[in-house]
């Protein structure tokens, strides 16, 4: 399928939009009518055709615009990309993983030619055609992790594995849900998860870490996480909270359908072969409430989930103040009919809204 890349922005005039195809493949994160943290991990081995699960690294209509936005963030704040000295090999691992998989999964967009360590990388959407020597940093304009993640959607945490723990020792983080790489750099799994409510008590992080430490080469895993964002902003970082935090107060019953976005992260986990590190790509998908409401099943369910979500979670995710207004809007799309299990839209089989 050829992809038509959107000309759009994630700041200022917010011209971001989802095509009909993008709405249909939006990763709606709720498989039932309620939500609680869980160790919701599964193998990352493809999925339904044209779903965001199909390819190892999903490339969609927002690719070019997202990469433009990343470059703007980095120009303002270079500390969004950091790599401790011992993480260079893991950076090469990541570059290799992305180049090899993208050229296999999207042969019409990306090409990789390898002749021993002499590599040529062609990225057609971004107009890049570079020759370099694999494992020789001096032949690239940036370090290997920065080079490749300037060309890949989503944030990337590159974790070192040692002492039965994972350490956030490198990353490219410009599209995050209110956490900071500069703050978390060098921390371990329990330290950077410290602010999360309820999950520690439920033993979720102990089990999740055990799972991650045992992820093996060739057997990647994935999970979904979600939050809420007012305006289609990619960069909701603590560093820029003064810019986006106040936008939450601009929500009105009239503009909420267009302005309020459900923000979903497709998180994947890959073992890195040469360094034995782990990479954690966090791919962010945004969808406005009004676009979600075009899928009757999602409309019914979103209302129920947001209505019944524990207060701690709504507070942590930063929408407790706007929750009443959201529910006023969402209840119009909930007719009380039952919903089918699973995240898929099921437009053809679920009844239309009975209101």
């Amino acid at each position, binding site marked *: 399928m050829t992809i038509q890349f959107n000309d759009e922005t994630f700041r200022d005039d917010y011209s971001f939009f989802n095509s009909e195809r993008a709405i249909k493949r939006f990763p709606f994160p709720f498989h039932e009518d309620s939500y609680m943290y869980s160790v919701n991990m599964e*193998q990352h081995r493809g999925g339904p055709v044209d779903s965001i699960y199909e390819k190892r690294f999903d490339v969609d209509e927002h690719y070019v615009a997202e990469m433009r936005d990343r470059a703007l963030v980095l120009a303002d704040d270079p500390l969004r990309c950091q790599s401790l000295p*011992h*993480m260079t*090999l893991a950076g090469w691992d990541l570059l290799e993983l992305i180049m090899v998989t993208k050229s296999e999964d999207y042969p019409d967009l990306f090409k990789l030619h390898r002749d021993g360590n002499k590599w040529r990388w062609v990225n057609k959407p971004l107009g890049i055609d570079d020759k370099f020597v694999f*494992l020789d940093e001096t032949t690239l304009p940036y370090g290997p992790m920065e080079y490749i993640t300037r060309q890949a959607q989503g944030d990337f945490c590159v974790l*070192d*594995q*040692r*002492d039965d723990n994972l350490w956030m020792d490198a990353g490219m983080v410009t599209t995050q849900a209110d956490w900071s790489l500069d703050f978390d750099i060098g921390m371990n799994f329990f330290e950077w998860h410290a602010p999360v409510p309820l999950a520690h008590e439920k033993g979720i992080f102990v089990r999740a870490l*055990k799972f991650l430490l*045992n992820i*093996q*080469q*060739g*057997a990647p895993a994935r999970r979904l996480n979600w939050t809420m964002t007012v305006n289609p902003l990619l960069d909701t970082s603590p560093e820029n909270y003064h810019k986006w935090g106040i936008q939450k107060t601009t929500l009105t019953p009239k503009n909420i359908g267009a302005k309020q976005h459900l923000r979903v992260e497709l998180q994947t986990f890959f073992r890195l*072969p*040469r*360094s*034995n590190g782990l990479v954690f790509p966090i791919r962010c998908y945004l969808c406005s409430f009004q676009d979600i409401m075009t899928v009757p099943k999602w409309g019914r369910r979103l209302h129920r989930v947001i209505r019944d979500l524990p207060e701690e979670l709504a507070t942590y995710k930063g929408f407790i103040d706007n929750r009443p207004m959201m529910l006023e809007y969402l209840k119009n799309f909930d007719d009380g009919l039952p919903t089918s299990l699973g995240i898929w839209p099921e437009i053809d089989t679920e009844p239309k809204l009975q209101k």
Partner: protein
Amino acid sequence: MSGIEKIQVVVTNIVRLNELVTRFEFKRTDGKLLPTFSGGAHTVVEMQDGEITRLNPYSLMSDPMCQRAYAISVRRDDEGRGGSLFMHNKVSVGDNMVISYPINLFSLDLRAKKHLFIAGGIGITPFLAQIKQLDRFNGYWNLHYSCRSESLGSYVDELTDQHPNETHVYYDDKDQQIDLVKLLEGQPLGTHVYVCGPKGMIDWVCNTASKEGWPREAIHYEEFLAPKPGKPFEVKLAVSGKVIQVGEQESLLEAIEREGIDAPYLCRGGACGQCETAVIDYAGNFIHRDHWLGEDEHKSGQKIMPCVSRFEGKILVLDR
């Protein structure tokens, strides 16, 4: 869900190094490249030994950057349950085999200023790959390698030829011993010590280093236990509703797999924790052999590591 990817390979070379150790080389059956790996990784080799399927872990000793072939070295264990005997006696060049993707439970700490390797006997194998990895990036390392005798010194010649300044060899039959305290005291700040060899050696190095004040994170060890034979016993598997017999020559994990139950594992040597299984009921004695569970857990009668541990008694019910 064991979740380990498999690779179909063909045995392309078998080299007898000495009386006890033989090297096996594998290439992919489909002619494609093998995955790269990191020094210290092992692969689990499947052996079809008559009725029994054995899965034994062996450290990869070839160059981690080389994707054409993998190499392992197997030490013959005449008293063991036969995995190494199978490799030595029944495997020939041209045979098709199945091995797992590389799994690393003994990786280098890439922050280290210096890597100090201490090897005993066949414990040299993971270091061979780590040395190749470090050489490629100009890493700083030293090896202290203890062997029984000159004739059993696998890879000594290769190591002393290529790395005369880094390699130090000690022969038991000449009463040569590593002066460990002195060695540890002489290391620069930021050194990490790695030990692989017999259990006695691992304990000796770990304990001495701790006593010398080395931080826990700077001490790394790998010991694969081979499961030991033992008296047959009966197990009830509560989840799958089966009663199975564990034979004298098979491990509990192998018996569970033989019944078609997909149980988790990674190292099959009591080290990784992946196979940990809850005990629902028992009457008898556990023979715990792993080094994953703590002493308290061993005594509690609530957990067992089926890859290496066994049981003697009337009743054993597992949550599997």
